[in-house]
């Protein structure tokens, strides 16, 4: 059990060593980088949904705002061309600002109504990204995203530091970006670990458990919720910034759609609402399955069956079904998630006992 409890640092260490191992593969490394980005996004959602208990169905909007801020600040098409540090910081601030500005007026709504407003907000941002093509280039995406040199390293040939010949020549090629993403993921985890135990974090949990009681104890729900949205949206913006950088483009507006928000909710709930390690596990399983395992399995099937492989024999044709069945079974038999937070587990099992 003690080993299980400390698996995230072990995993992080293993991932940090991965690019140096002989089995390291460029494509796989890039997929891992995207996985780190989604892990940051899921942790961001966890602040809003897990700690504070606000069902937010539009997280992808902040992700998109982060990505497009970086895009606008770094593509040659616009006159800004900032370094990544500046544009990512701007992405974080923009996402947090939009989050606060759009959520502040609707915070008095509760539960389902808040979920609907955030869902609508996510869709509107997605349509704005798609429709404002003079700025966002519509479905073509903003590219190429080639941020300037890292401040302090201007003029340094980063490629001289590479250990492996296929490591790319720009600082943001794999695996530099791999380490940037992994490093930011570790920093996010540490940041949230401390935040959870801070006055603010404990106040969020109190609010989630019983808003009325928390208010009576002198907490200000509106301010706490706005703080949660600001932190969550900011982290989601950071994830978006990294995402745009990793893809070298903002890609397609459909990368920031409702499905992404939904899958993130699923990651958080599958892993364990409110528990950092659980959320990491949820991302590892769901997104790892979605982005990596499905492709591998499809290729295996293709190799094994050759031309006789039909569309429905591929795993990718059954992906949604597998997702759906996993969610349904989890909610039925283990609603607290794979690695539940102690408080959530107690609450759900009390409910079982009462019903039972």
């Amino acid at each position, binding site marked *: 059990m003690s080993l299980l409890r400390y698996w995230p640092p072990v995993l992080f260490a293993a991932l940090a060593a991965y690019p140096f191992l002989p089995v390291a593969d460029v494509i796989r490394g890039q997929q891992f980088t995207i996985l780190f980005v989604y892990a940051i996004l899921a942790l961001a959602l966890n602040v809003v949904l897990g700690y504070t208990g606000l*069902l937010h169905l539009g997280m992808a909007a902040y992700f998109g705002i982060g990505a497009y801020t970086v895009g606008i600040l770094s593509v040659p098409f616009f006159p800004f061309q900032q370094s990544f540090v500046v544009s990512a910081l701007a992405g974080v601030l923009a996402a947090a600002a939009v989050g606060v500005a759009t959520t502040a*007026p*609707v915070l008095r*709504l*509760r*539960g*389902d*109504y808040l*979920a*609907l*407003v955030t*869902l*609508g*907000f996510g*869709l*509107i941002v997605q*349509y*704005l990204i*798609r*429709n404002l093509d003079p700025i966002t280039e519509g479905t073509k995406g903003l590219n190429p995203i080639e941020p300037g040199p890292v401040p302090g390293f201007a003029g340094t040939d980063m490629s001289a530091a590479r250990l492996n010949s296929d490591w790319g020549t720009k600082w943001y090629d794999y695996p530099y970006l791999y380490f940037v993403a992994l490093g930011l993921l570790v920093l996010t985890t540490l940041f949230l670990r401390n935040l959870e135990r801070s006055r603010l974090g404990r106040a969020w949990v109190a609010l989630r458990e019983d808003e*009325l009681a928390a208010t009576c104890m002198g907490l200000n729900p509106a301010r706490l919720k706005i703080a949660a949205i600001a932190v969550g949206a900011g982290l989601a913006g950071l994830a978006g910034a990294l995402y745009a950088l990793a893809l070298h483009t903002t890609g397609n507006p459909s990368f920031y759609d*409702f499905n992404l928000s*939904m899958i993130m*909710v*699923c990651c958080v*709930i599958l892993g364990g609402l409110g528990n950092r390690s659980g959320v990491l596990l949820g991302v590892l399983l769901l997104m790892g399955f979605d982005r990596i395992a499905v492709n591998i399995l499809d290729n295996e099937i293709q190799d094994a069956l050759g031309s006789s492989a039909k*569309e*429905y024999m591929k795993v990718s*044709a*059954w*992906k*949604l*079904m597998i*997702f*759906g*069945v*996993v*969610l*349904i079974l*989890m*909610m*039925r038999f283990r*609603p607290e998630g794979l690695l539940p937070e102690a408080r959530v587990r107690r*609450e*759900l099992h009390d*409910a079982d006992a*009462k*019903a039972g």
Partner: protein
Amino acid sequence: MLDVFAQTGAAGFEQFLLLGLVMGSLYALIALGYTMVYGIIELINFAHGDLFMLGGFLAWQLAWTLGVRTLDASSTGAVVGAVALMLVTAPLACAALNVATDRVIYRPLRSAPKLTVIVSAIGVSFVFMNVGSLWLGTSPVKFPDLVPDANLVTAAGVRFTWKDLMVVGVTVPTMVALTLFVKFTPLGKAMRATAQNPTAAKLMGINVDRVIAVTFAIGGSLAGVAAVVNGLYNKSVHYQMGFQNGLYAFTAAVLGGIGNIPGAVLGGLVIGVVGELSKAYLGTKWSEAVVFTILIVILVFRPSGLLGARTREKV
């Protein structure tokens, strides 16, 4: 808002209004399924739109199997028979599927926290969507064009075709029948009682599980009717069509006041009209953004919807 558009004086306003009302009555049918289920068990049934999609696929399959594929190649009798068969089979199948889903998936979670049930509904939606994509593939499929497009109105500037008449002719009687059912039958009364207070309803001897099953059956069959009408009207089905139509219908339900049956109808009509007018005057790509902006504005300024009663927060 309508006044603003009227003042622009653009030709064809009446046409878009009419089109909006026709689309709106379709949304209203789907919205009723959402609003009735929400009214009784407070579940945002994310799978409802996908149920609608499966109903459309079933109708397509029927027409295809029967060989009724175009208006010209089949006799009038065959077309009428096929449409009638669709209008019976699809609602029945959707109702059965909806009740089965409730029985197997939602009922064991009755006492669980809301989030748990919503997440299972999302899971069901994924499963339905996957069934759809395995059934007819991932690209849009042409639905048999069985209702003539001939204009029925001689007035200048307005087109009202057999298709429009079919939508109105199917949806309006269905909604009237539903309203009468809920208002005047004992089962309808039990439904309203359960929606108000499930515990008290149970204490009064109402079989709450049965009432919930009936609600799911009615919601499902309305989705089935809407699916057939939608297929015949829009002449195309797609495995993701449940998502957009479902969201529009849900917006309609919220707009009218969720849990409120006349509200869902009114909301559906408003969403239909606003959607078509914004398509006409702002461009197709902006109509979704307009619809969801309205959703947010309504929720912020009047969370109980247009017809919903202002209820105090239950603590």
